């Protein structure tokens, strides 16, 4: 929890090595996209834009949309 200002001398007991970008990228691209699509359905589908006809999705997540701060109606 120490200041990041602490120079290289700080706790050698716990070396924090960054995870390589190559290992992160595939997960980030695939799951990042998936998560954004899910958030779109909770936050905006059948509001400003509509991929599925009707208003069932909108009505179902209606309360969540209001309380999570997304524009609704």
């Amino acid at each position, binding site marked *: *929890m*120490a*200041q*990041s*200002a*602490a120079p290289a001398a*700080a*706790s050698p*007991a*716990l070396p*924090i*090595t*960054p*995870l*390589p*970008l190559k*290992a*992160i990228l*595939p*997960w*980030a691209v695939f*799951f*990042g996209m*998936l*998560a*954004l699509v*899910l*958030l779109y*359905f*909770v*936050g*905006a589908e059948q*509001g*400003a*834009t509509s991929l599925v006809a009707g*208003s*069932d999705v909108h*009505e*179902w*997540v*209606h*309360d*969540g*949309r*209001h*309380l*999570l*701060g*997304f*524009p*609704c*109606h």
Partner: protein
Amino acid sequence: MNSTTVRSLLVRGMLAGLVAGLLALVVAYLMGEPRVDAAIAFEDSHSHEHEMEIVSRSLQSTAGLATGVLIFGVSLGGIAALAFCFALGRVGRFTPRATAVLISGAALLTVYVVPFLKYPANPPSIGDPETIGKRTTLYFLMIALSVLLAVAAVILGKRLAPRLTTWYASVVAGVAYLVAIGLAYAFLPAINEVPADFSATLLWQFRLAAVAIQLTLWTAFALTFGYLAERVLTPRPAKSEAAEANSESNTAAWTAASAG
């Protein structure tokens, strides 16, 4: 090995997001739902044409609310875990737990609080259906701006750190972020569609509940994911050695805790 680490952190991020979502759901149900109901009562007393109910109120306020909040929690938990993988050891020399707290705090601030201060959450009966497109665009634009500017501020801070020391570099980066956000607030159009006779108290209570939901979500996420990530990333020798391997202060704290 590293790819498996990312995978297990991602899985734990979504799990922590689910836990955080459940707690946020409790807050949403207890604090938020009474205000949604009150706002709908206001709406009904003003329009005499009754819309056909597609999903009943009792379903909307329970299963519907749960669907929304839990998907929100799991999705953001996953994204936050990926951001954590990237930030760990790159933003500064923070432990996994501290990094989890930093990422969660940054997410709460940039994804929610900063956009909220310009375009706050609104209960039913506020908002003209005609302007939903504009309002949605502006809200998501504000989130994107806020996150991108925060990333830019962190990069700026990292660049300045060697010259200014970490403390002053962070202060400069923080001020730069606030100035940029202030400009965005000033230039993006304002939206105010609150009916003149809508209860100010109800609006305040609704928005307070909306903030409480996010505060609960991100606090619970920070603590749960921090705990899980620390376990994934800290090699665990046998119990007796674990105490020795830790720093003196930790050992002292552990001994005190187990003695007490």
